[in-house]
């Protein structure tokens, strides 16, 4: 019989223990399912973060996962700096909120989420086209269109001033129900330009920014889209020369710009909000945040506000859209849990809680979710934001400025505000339309080189 020595026994025991450790599934402390670190966008609406924390805790409890949530502000571009730092260092959160263009910027570092999106679209139908353009840059979903932070920028109209100075009963035109009112078919840029002129003459100019911040680029982008006017096609070819639709859009935008306050060229994203809240403006393009602040600071202004879709152009109605995305870094060690959590977060019940928590600000990416109760009940006046989400009777599509250019180039065009600068060169700089179009063509060729 072989004698088992003490040393042999210890050696065998150590081997068994090591094999057990190496082959065992990852078991985390106290039987939990691990840790999920999330960097979510710091919501403008304070209650938005509260709801997100509740959702994190709820899912974490149910799935025995320690969901740790930080909020990262977009003030001072902090969220962009955080994303870029994490991408460079390949370390950071598991789940990150990505502003509009960042999924395509970091697509090579993001975990594909086609499986999650397949499940969600089976349940809720198609995602709106602008979200698909941004989140699926090379035929693969690299991030999930988020509810929290995603916004539309329809027209927030002072219906009293619009009625008084432009003769348009905007509430009758776009009532708080799923139907168009009288005159809705005439709600186009031509009508809009005439109303802008009338309100300007009356001292209540429309508050439309024309700088290089997002509010400016977005509304001009929607106007261009509704004329079928695009600076670059989906293959990256510059489409400026001999483009009659672009010229028509530019002329219309320049015409409207002449009836705006003379300092709109320097407005930031708060300029239009201030114009509305101060009672100086009859119309702005913005999510309901300006109206929400007015409810607190200038209730007499808020009580006369009504949200309606953007005007239509010859090629249809485009609604300016600025989404956030939820993405999973490919260096994450909790990809499975992250996918499960994001799918749960995108489900209708959770989406509605996020939208309710933000007083209707957050827009879910699925058209089938444009019937949340909050948009009917928010007020005063009740029904003011009924037409904030894109509804079927609007006959509108979401738009992101600079689409359909390849996202890698569109992001550069967007952040450099090429569409607003084009108009500024004509209206403020005194250039002819041809000169300004020549300039934008040269800039686009510069962007094209190097991708």
């Amino acid at each position, binding site marked *: 019989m072989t004698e088992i020595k003490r040393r042999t026994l210890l050696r065998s025991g150590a081997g068994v223990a090591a094999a057990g450790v190496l082959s065992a599934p990852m078991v985390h402390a106290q039987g939990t399912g691990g840790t999920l670190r999330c960097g979510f966008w710091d919501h403008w609406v304070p209650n938005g973060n509260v709801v997100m924390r509740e959702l994190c805790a709820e899912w974490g409890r149910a799935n025995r996962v320690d969901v740790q949530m930080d909020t990262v502000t977009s003030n001072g571009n902090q969220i962009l700096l955080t994303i*870029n730092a994490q991408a460079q260092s390949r370390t950071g959160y598991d789940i990150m909120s990505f502003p509009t263009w960042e999924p395509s910027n970091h697509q090579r570092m993001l975990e594909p989420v086609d499986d999650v999106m397949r499940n969600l679209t089976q349940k809720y139908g198609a995602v709106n086209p602008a979200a698909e353009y941004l989140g699926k840059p090379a035929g693969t979903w690299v991030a999930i269109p988020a509810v929290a932070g995603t916004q539309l920028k329809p027209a927030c109209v002072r219906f009293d001033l619009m009625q008084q100075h432009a003769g348009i009963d905007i509430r009758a035109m776009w009532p708080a129900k799923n139907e168009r009112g009288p005159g809705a078919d005439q709600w186009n840029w031509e009508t809009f330009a005439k109303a802008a002129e009338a309100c300007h003459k009356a001292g209540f100019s429309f508050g439309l920014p024309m700088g290089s911040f997002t509010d400016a680029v977005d509304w001009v982008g929607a106007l261009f889209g509704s004329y079928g006017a695009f600076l670059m096609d989906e293959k990256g070819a510059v489409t400026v020369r001999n483009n009659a639709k672009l010229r028509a859009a530019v002329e219309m935008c320049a015409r409207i710009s002449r009836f705006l306050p003379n300092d709109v060229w320097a407005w930031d994203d708060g300029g239009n909000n201030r114009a509305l809240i101060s009672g100086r403006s009859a119309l702005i393009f913005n999510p309901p945040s300006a109206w929400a602040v007015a409810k607190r600071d200038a209730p007499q202004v808020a009580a006369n506000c009504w949200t309606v879709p953007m005007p239509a152009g010859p090629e249809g109605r485009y609604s300016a859209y600025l989404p956030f995305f939820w993405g999973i870094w490919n260096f994450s060690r909790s990809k499975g849990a992250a996918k499960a959590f994001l799918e749960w977060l995108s489900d209708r019940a959770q989406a509605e809680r996020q939208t309710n928590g933000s007083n209707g600000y957050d827009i879910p990416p699925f058209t089938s979710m444009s019937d949340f109760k909050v948009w009917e009940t928010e007020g005063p006046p009740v029904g003011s934001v009924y037409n904030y989400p894109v509804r079927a009777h609007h006959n509108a599509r979401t738009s992101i400025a600079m689409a359909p250019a390849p996202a*890698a180039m569109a992001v550069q065009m967007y952040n450099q505000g090429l569409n607003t600068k084009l108009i500024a060169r004509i209206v403020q700089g005194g250039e002819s339309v041809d000169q300004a179009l020549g300039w934008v063509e040269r*800039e686009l060729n510069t962007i094209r080189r190097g991708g």
Partner: protein
Amino acid sequence: MAADASTAPIMPSAPNSGRASSLQRLARRRSTIAVLMTIPLLVVLIGLVAYPAGYGIYLSTLNRRMTGFMEGEWLPNGLGNFEILFESETFWAVAWQSCIFAISAVILKALVGFWLAHMLHHIPAKGQRKWRGMLLVPWVIPPALSTLGWWWMFDPAYSSINWLFQVVGIPQVPWLGEKWWARLSIIIVNVWYGAPFFMIMYLAALKSVPEQLYEAAAIDGATSWQRLRYVTLPMMANIISITVLFSLIVTFANYDIVRVLTNGGPRDLTHVFASYAFQVGILSGNIPRGAAVSLFMFPILAICAFFVLRGVTRRNKEQM
């Protein structure tokens, strides 16, 4: 016997360990000690200056996806980003604006600082400290914060300055919305922020000018202008040069004032290199091209530094 220039005084060592004693001798050499003592500085310089600069240069040679070198058409591969910038109207507008901004702001800061230093210099010592403290306040406040205060004063819709203008019947000014007014606004804020630095440097220089020189000039019948021209300015020439160079570097690289006040607008006419590099690199997701923009400051500042430092060296030699 005088100590050897390259070694510290040699202490008696243990006789039984040859290797240890040679290590001890090496450790006692002054050059070894000097190298050891400079290591922390070298680490800082390499880690915080050389590496970021080198990495910045490397980044500028890459394509947008950072998967390879950026191809050039008439410049070698790797310099494609610079080639694109050379051909961009916006970039040249930014370069032009950066020069206008930096040169005019530095000149104004130097003049205002010189004037303030002179005023302070002639205040009796007792009251001088109080004024000095008050005049340094703009320089002490973080610029992003103070610029926000200025932005509120220039704000397109609610400018307090315009409100005052309205009260006294002066037409309102589009401070941030019109090309030259916007340029002037960022220069005003930069001068307000930076002039105290010049003031304190010039004040120190003024205090070091020997009083006897002024007395001699007075005996020779020199006017106050001649005293300034032939006594004060030559004595302060070096400190003026160094201060101007230092400020030129900082002003060229300024970011926060432009970012907060105008974000480069209207029509990119107030962008400086740093704000444009941020827009191209971080906001637009083209980090290599952003790095190329920011590297353009380097040759301009290197030329300025060369001429200014050469002047300082020449003056020092003349005085020796």
